[in-house]
């Protein structure tokens, strides 16, 4: 009886894998949004303002860890930690994240710190647009909003950069996490 139910779950996972989709849990967006908002609040504190880059880098590491853990947990629940769809998702995300890391180092080395928020938002948005192929259209919409915010951030004065980062990595993640949770994964909230 149990083996039949397990085989049914495996068949469902195989069908999902073959269809090439990844169900992104809304909880991942909510977790990333919470980390983004916390980073924005910390970086806005007058005493910590000069440490904004370090705070956001730490938030990026925490975000990757939290998002990765949630996705890995969901994949493990379906029986395959690193199934084909999850690999596709990672491959879509990696080029944008890698370019962001390289450009961050380049901007930091040349003292061009004001270009970093726009670069992050723009490249992360591009990475999300890529991931909409194996995930869902709503992830592409989120990516397009990040791209728009990134373009706007290049023209914003320095004092508004933290606001832009908070609006993107905090606000957009949170709102879309809730939307995805409601729309696609009623079971996961």
């Amino acid at each position, binding site marked *: 009886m149990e083996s039949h139910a397990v085989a049914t779950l495996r068949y469902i996972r195989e069908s999902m894998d*073959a269809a090439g989709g990844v169900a992104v849990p809304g909880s991942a967006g909510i977790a990333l949004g919470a980390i983004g908002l916390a980073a924005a609040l910390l970086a806005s504190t007058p005493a910590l303002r000069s440490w904004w880059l370090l705070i956001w880098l730490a938030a990026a590491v925490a975000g990757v860890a939290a998002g990765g853990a949630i996705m890995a947990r969901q994949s493990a629940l379906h029986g395959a930690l690193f199934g084909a769809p999850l690999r596709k998702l990672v491959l879509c995300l990696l080029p944008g994240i890698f370019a962001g890391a390289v450009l961050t180092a380049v901007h930091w080395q040349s003292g061009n710190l004001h270009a970093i928020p726009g670069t992050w938002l723009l490249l992360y948005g591009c990475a999300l647009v890529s991931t909409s192929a194996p995930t869902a259209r709503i992830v592409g919409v989120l990516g397009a909003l990040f791209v728009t915010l990134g373009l706007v951030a290049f023209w914003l004065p320095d004092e508004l950069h933290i606001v832009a980062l908070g609006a993107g990595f905090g606000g957009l993640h949170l709102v879309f996490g809730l939307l995805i949770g409601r729309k696609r994964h009623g079971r996961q909230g």
Partner: protein
Amino acid sequence: MVGRASVRARSETTAPRRAGPAAVPGGGRAAHDASFDRLVYERVRLGIMSALAVREELSFSELKALFEVSDGNLSAHARKLEEAGYLTCAKSFEARRPKSLYRLTAVGRAAFNRYLDHVESVIKATRR
């Protein structure tokens, strides 16, 4: 789009083929369980719903390639799901050829989630 590495080929030995509620806890009782949906239980229909749960829409030819079933078989299963309100089918023409695009409805997603809950509860109950 959907590759030819179909579910059927890989799941030949693993996918549940036995029909009927004997496979779920409670035997005959399961047939009356609200969470057990006979319409979703059938293998091809379960596959169609699983695929559409992760893709917003899939065409008839994509589904056919995915499950390696005949046109008649697929359209019969899809029609049953459509009649139950689990799927919508949008018909159009692409390069003068008819194209059918299937989507999961909110009712269909709820039924699929209920079915998943049911399978998970079977596993939990038997592991206790």
